[in-house]
């Protein structure tokens, strides 16, 4: 039987299906009560209005039930606030492999940095431009590579 932690960590993000919720850093903890078998999963949203949260909660329940853990509670916390710095190295590599430019590290002292060069996830060129400050999901912006002309999604540093 898979452990509760393994089952939950394998749940993929419903909007960016190449990355797991563990890679994304929104899975905060998985705790199993050895006496009752009850599993308490704690997650945090990327953005306050992220519309994928209900699906993620349902997917976590489904994964745990399938792994033999029917007693599940999913809690949502907002503090500390999620940061793109919590995306794991494995997660960044998966994003890039799927043609999504991963975020740059967040500057801690100021507001969202917008002027850092974003490398094209396809050809690696730093010669890119932002097409739209908002993208297909709350956490992404739309960019284009001037070298290979391909448009691509970029996870905004937050």
């Amino acid at each position, binding site marked *: 039987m898979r452990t509760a932690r393994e089952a939950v960590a394998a749940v993929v993000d419903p909007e960016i299906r190449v990355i797991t919720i563990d890679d994304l850093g929104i899975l905060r903890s998985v705790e199993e009560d050895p006496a009752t078998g009850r599993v308490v999963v704690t997650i945090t949203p990327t953005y*306050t*209005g992220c519309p994928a949260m209900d699906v993620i909660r349902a997917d976590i329940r489904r994964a745990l039930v399938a792994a033999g853990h029917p007693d599940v509670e999913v809690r949502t916390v*907002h*503090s*500390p606030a*999620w940061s793109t710095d919590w995306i794991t190295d494995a997660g960044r590599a998966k994003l890039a492999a799927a043609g999504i430019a991963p975020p740059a590290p967040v500057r801690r002292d100021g507001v*969202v940095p917008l002027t850092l060069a974003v490398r094209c996830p396809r050809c690696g060129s730093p010669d890119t431009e932002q*097409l739209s400050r*908002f993208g297909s999901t709350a956490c992404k912006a739309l960019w284009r590579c001037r070298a290979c002309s391909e448009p691509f999604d970029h996870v*905004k540093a937050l």
Partner: protein
Amino acid sequence: MNGPFAFTLALGDDALIAAQRLAEWTTRAPEMEEDIALANIALDQLGAARLLLSYAGELEGAGRDEDALAYLRDDREFRNCLLVELPNGDFAVTMAKLLALSAYQLPLYTALAGCADERLAAIGAKARKESAYHLDHAALWVKRLGDGTEESHRRMQAGIDQVWPYVHELFAAPPGAPVDPATLRGDFDTTVAAVLAEATLTLPDSGWAPGGGRDGVHTEHLSYLLAEMQVLARAHPGARW
């Protein structure tokens, strides 16, 4: 009322009504990218509204959840500022409203992040990151339109002139507020002045300062907005999909 109930409700209503207004742009924005931007900003506002209204319902202790507060109150029971209920106007008016709202929400959420109330501190710490991006977005457009063509300058200035009287209301504190909004006025004025200077725009010197939103005395625009926002929940109580 209990603790920061009035304050939390006011902030939640600001975010909820701002979200509903911004969402009206969906499919009607001047360009595709802006359509996506305004819908995303609306979604952020809605996310903050849900957290704030849920907490307000708990503070009130009368069994009202976020849906009951959003859908089952009448205009006189809403505590949002008048700024957010004003019609969208043209795109310049919408950007003037967004500039004022985000220049207010950013320092407010930042201050909340350090307050003693844990729930409000968590919401503030989360929402301030999103507000920073909204402020950037509004500032870019205000500069582009203000320092653009003669026509875009004229309309952006008209937008600022129309919206400005309504910002003064933002800095009055509801009872039990853990952060006094009056202390944010300096930050707000500095931010806005810097954007307007770069945009070659000026602040109107009118002393008119309409208010009343925090006491439930609204413009007629709110009633029409609520009619559309609430009709489904009221016509089909408990509807789910």
